[in-house]
């Protein structure tokens, strides 16, 4: 309570902050829309109202500088609305910069309590305010154009460099699902994670109970176990769904990014979105943000040709960048495509040779599409020697690959010269659960993340061929190296292979690399909550190689989850040795 008879409203401060961020996002979206549809009165009214509401919120939060800035933007928008000021790219640039400034002011607010934003009136703000004031006072759009000596988004300004996205924490807050009348609450993701973990444990107990009831043939117990099973399944589904958000929250940010990047590159580009309602784990949405930003910048910077070149090639002058998402089994596929020039094999070869990634001899012959893919994603390939504002600074596609693989996902590339390029990201639906393929080796259970398992085959060892020192198997005309899974795992090898009896081989694939791992037994699929290895680590007799974590199965059995990429690397080293 502030004083007698006064309610304590500081708890509402967060509401005003959240709402203000949402307003900024909405204005940013609408300003970009306005550039495409300058005559849309509805959009114009909406932007004007949002600026007005932002001013009001700033006032309630005691953020005077923000209120002043929002007010000056409202004034300018008022003139656009009444037709006395024409809207154009320069004006929109200026308004978007105003939004960035608003965002920074909001970010400066102390979390949880009103504090005001005094003393944050930087030179940038002064300049913005003066410009808005001039526009309000009657100057034409020319006043919005950058003046000499006025830096347009200095690249070293962190807010500009980051594409003026709010910090992840801010984003998290703004993305939270909120209802109009307080019928929703916000819960920290850490608490959700604990819940997911507990449900995972519950699932394990449930399976133990089920197998116990089967073993004891106790009829009533079986019924109870079955009922519990159903409930536990439902509970798990519900808990996991709490973490799911539509990918729209990510995609919507790209209107602004594409607009700014395209304008900077001097190329007209439109953004197309597809599958915005596709839901996936919030943590994954956040984790794919940077890779997708990178790919979109790349598409505009390198993929889309300048308008003249497009015209010469008989293409529409306006380039197209498309973001699409869809569910595919237990994964989400995110595509970033452009209708630009495509990736030319010869120039990849030249570049790779320059960078020392390809020997002079190898650089003579044309590359296979797989080799092109491997080179493009390898570290050092796209490390630009000049700083390139648009496609990033010395950051290559290998960073995108590493980030996506870190999520247990994959990146693929399809390109056609003159037609365009599509990057396909395949990521799990959720980080909380992984789907594993269970195999037994030397009496111990291992789980291979299902993403990487292509198929299982049964082959009689005498059908293997030996190339060099390596066993290979011909699978539909392609030679795949084959080795016991025990080998890279450092597990004891089970005795000599039978000669004629078929043994199970799990074909694991990543990109163009395929390896067949011999296992003792294939034990089916399961879903599980992955745990960091910590507490289990001590129980292992061998140093941990190629293992990403551990998990308890319903049966109570410990399963070690393989780090497939690590295994493939180990397998490669061993084959080479």
């Amino acid at each position: 309570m502030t004083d007698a008879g006064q309610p304590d409203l500081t708890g509402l401060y967060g509401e005003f902050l959240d709402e203000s961020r949402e307003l900024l996002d909405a204005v940013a979206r609408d300003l970009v829309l306005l550039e495409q549809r300058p005559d849309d009165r509805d959009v114009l009214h909406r932007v004007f109202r949002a600026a007005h509401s932002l001013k009001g919120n700033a006032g309630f939060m005691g953020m005077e500088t923000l209120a002043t800035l929002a007010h000056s933007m409202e004034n300018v928008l008022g003139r656009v609305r009444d037709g006395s000021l024409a809207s154009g790219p320069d004006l929109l640039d200026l308004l978007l910069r105003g939004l960035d400034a608003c965002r920074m002011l909001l970010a400066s607010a102390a979390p949880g309590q009103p504090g005001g934003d005094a003393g944050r009136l930087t030179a940038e703000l002064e300049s913005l305010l003066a410009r808005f004031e001039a526009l309000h006072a009657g100057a034409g759009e020319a006043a919005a154009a950058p003046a000499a000596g006025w830096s347009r988004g200095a690249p070293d300004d962190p807010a500009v460099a980051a594409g003026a996205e709010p910090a992840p924490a801010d984003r998290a807050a703004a993305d939270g699902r909120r209802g109009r009348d307080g019928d929703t609450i916000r819960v920290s993701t850490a608490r959700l994670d604990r819940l997911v973990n507990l449900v995972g444990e519950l699932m394990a107990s449930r399976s133990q109970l089920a197998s116990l009831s089967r073993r004891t043939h106790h009829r009533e117990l079986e019924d109870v176990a079955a009922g519990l099973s159903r409930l536990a399944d439902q509970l798990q589904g519900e808990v996991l769904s709490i973490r799911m958000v539509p990918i729209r929250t990510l995609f919507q940010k790209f209107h602004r990014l594409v607009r700014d990047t395209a304008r900077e590159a001097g190329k007209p580009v439109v953004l197309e979105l597809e599958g915005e309602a596709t839901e996936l784990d919030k943590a994954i949405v956040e984790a794919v943000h940077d890779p997708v930003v990178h790919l979109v910048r790349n598409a505009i910077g390198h993929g889309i040709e300048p308008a003249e070149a497009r015209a010469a090639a008989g293409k529409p002058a306006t380039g197209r960048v498309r973001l699409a998402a869809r569910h595919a089994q237990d994964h989400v596929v995110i595509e970033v495509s452009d209708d630009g020039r495509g990736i030319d094999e010869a120039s990849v070869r030249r570049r790779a040779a320059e960078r020392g990634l390809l020997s002079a001899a190898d650089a003579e012959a044309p590359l296979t599409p797989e080799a092109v893919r491997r080179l493009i994603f390898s570290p050092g390939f796209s490390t630009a020697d000049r700083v390139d504002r648009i496609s990033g600074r010395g950051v290559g596609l290998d960073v995108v690959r590493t980030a996506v693989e870190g999520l247990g996902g994959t990146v693929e590339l399809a390109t056609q010269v003159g037609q365009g390029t599509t990057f396909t990201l395949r990521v799990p639906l959720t980080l909380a659960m992984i789907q594993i393929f269970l195999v037994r080796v030397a009496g111990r259970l291992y789980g291979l993340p299902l993403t990487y398992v292509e198929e299982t085959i049964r082959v009689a060892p005498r059908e293997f061929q030996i190339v060099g020192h390596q066993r290979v198997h011909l699978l539909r005309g392609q030679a795949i190296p084959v080795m016991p899974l025990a080998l890279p795992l450092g597990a004891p090898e089970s005795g000599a292979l039978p000669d004629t009896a078929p043994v199970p081989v799990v074909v694991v694939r990543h990109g163009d690399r395929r390896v067949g791992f011999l296992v003792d037994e294939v034990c089916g699929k399961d879903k599980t909550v992955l745990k960091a290895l910590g507490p289990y680590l001590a129980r292992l007799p061998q140093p941990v190689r190629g293992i990403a974590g551990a998990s308890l199965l319903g049966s109570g059995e410990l399963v070690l989850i393989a780090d497939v990429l690590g295994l493939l690397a180990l397998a490669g080293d061993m084959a080479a040795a």
Partner: protein
Amino acid sequence: MSRKILIAEDSPATQKFISFTLKYKGHDVTIASDGIEALEKLPQAQYDLLILDIMMPRMNGLEVLREIKKRPETSALPVIMLTSEKGEADRQTALSLGARFFLNKPFQPDQLLEAIDQVFA
């Protein structure tokens, strides 16, 4: 004394701010998120007061005020207009339409409660 109050305001945060303050004082609060919703809700109960924001989607507060004054059953309903400090033109229009009470945004809870005291003085 508890009053039945309708709030017409589009910002959820401001809705909460106002309703929290009023409920704290024991008033009975209903919320409308825009002008049309306000006009729909008015006939559904016997309201003692309308707190009316000017800038709202679908139908703004001035249009709502004009409509209220036109309808005999609501023409005497007391209205507090929520205005912005710089919105002199809107205030003049509201005055000419018969509004008597104004509250500039942003306001503190005690300013809101004072305004309500004035209405019922």
